[in-house]
């Protein structure tokens, strides 16, 4: 069935790629670009470990999107969220609060949380639950994850206040 040439921007870097039409964004991120931070779990839209952020910062499942659909578009993966060499506040908070057990779901959970906090840094409990509902930790639970998300939100609020001041 041949391959198609696409231009895809990942974490600000532009790639020209020949992709098979039936390969997903996940396949291309991991196998062709070599960014393996985005995990491959169920590959059928149930587990959320493949979550990345689309053009508007929205959380999407890279396993349920064909790479060819992203021609000319940009995505952000877990490798691209550090800010000026520092960990993103969500990443830092996950470290500090031990919000990681085996770590396999972590990139998807972090990208889900980032998508929420990019829209609001004062999320309600319901908003946090809803934003994290599609990326499920199978090891333990979401208590530490939610503590970390709340802490990251506080840091991001402080950063906003500092930037405004």
């Amino acid at each position, binding site marked *: *069935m041949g391959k*198609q040439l696409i231009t895809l921007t990942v974490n600000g870097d532009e790639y020209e790629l020949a992709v*098979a*039409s*039936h*390969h*997903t964004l*996940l*396949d291309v991120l*991991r*196998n062709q670009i070599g960014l393996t931070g985005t995990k*491959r779990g169920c*590959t*059928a*839209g*149930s*587990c*959320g470990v493949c*979550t990345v952020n*689309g053009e508007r910062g*929205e*959380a*999407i*499942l890279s396993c*349920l*999107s*064909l790479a*060819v*659909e992203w*021609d000319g578009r940009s995505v952000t993966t877990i490798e691209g969220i550090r800010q000026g060499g520092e960990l993103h506040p969500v990443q830092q908070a996950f470290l500090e609060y031990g919000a990681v057990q085996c770590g396999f779901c972590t990139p998807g959970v972090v990208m*889900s949380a980032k*998508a*929420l906090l990019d829209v609001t840094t004062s999320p309600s409990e319901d908003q946090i639950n*809803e*934003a994290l*509902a*599609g*990326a*499920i930790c199978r090891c333990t639970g979401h208590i530490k994850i939610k503590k970390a998300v709340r802490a990251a939100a506080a840091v991001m609020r402080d950063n906003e206040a500092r930037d405004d001041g």
Partner: protein
Amino acid sequence: MLSSQRFRFDGESTDSETTMYPAPFRYHRAGSADEAISLLAELGDGARPLAGGQTLLVWMKLRFDEPTDLVDIARIPNLSSIEHDDHQVRIGALATHGRIAASPLARLIPIVHDCANGIADRQVRSRGTIGGSLAAGDPSCDWPALLHTLDAEVLCQGPDGERTIGIGDFVEDLYATALQEGELVTGIRFALPPARSAGAYVGFKRCAPAYPTASAGVQLTLAEDADTCADVRIALGSAGLTPIHATAAEAELRGQALNETTIERAAEAAVAASDPVDDQRGSPAFKRAMLRVLVRRAVGIAIRRCNGESVEHSHEYY
């Protein structure tokens, strides 16, 4: 994918051995509805339109469907508007669940928010579209049941031009719709609910990414005395091979005083109209028990909303 040797233990495992791919197909991108329709008609019955892909790509990975060609319609302009006037609501086929949930329309008509925001998780709502959910003909999808509740019409465009199909005629059977070869859903429309009318859509799910085990939609119009049901529509999702329009349940309420007895009778009539299948989400008896509760809850929320109360609601979880 299902070979016994999923992992290579003599070296590194590679993605190609552990991932699910759809079967190969040819990919086409349409710039307009006309172009998509011509392509679909020309490519024949192996071709499928691709919108958000949140249903279709799963089906393809599971080999429920093996299209020869996909026609990507997601970039067609002017098919994702969400608008209403004093009489009518119109939603473009490519409007995503997430955009609908966040729209002023969803604040105006809470039952629309119930449905849009209850579908799967944020990730799926970012990509999945109302048109795709409808065209899939899947009784587990939320939009078909909601659109039955609102007595919506489906706007279609095909090789023979445009036509409008009532929701009751659009969904024909399990995974089967009235769409002809080359025909696309371009949008849906329904009447803006009148004064003293409100609805609720309640689903029961195991977890966010799962389809509902069962769901019920109720749109209720109160008479001027505020105690009598002037009109009602009740529809059930995941309750049979198609969404079920529970007319006998409506008859139990229409023109009647709304009280425990009449609401219970309506719930029982709705359950009697259901024909749930036995699957991993539950036995028919379990689903019927859920439907009875869901209809009662949806009626209760609809009454409160009719009376001007703001009731936040979404799907129920285990």
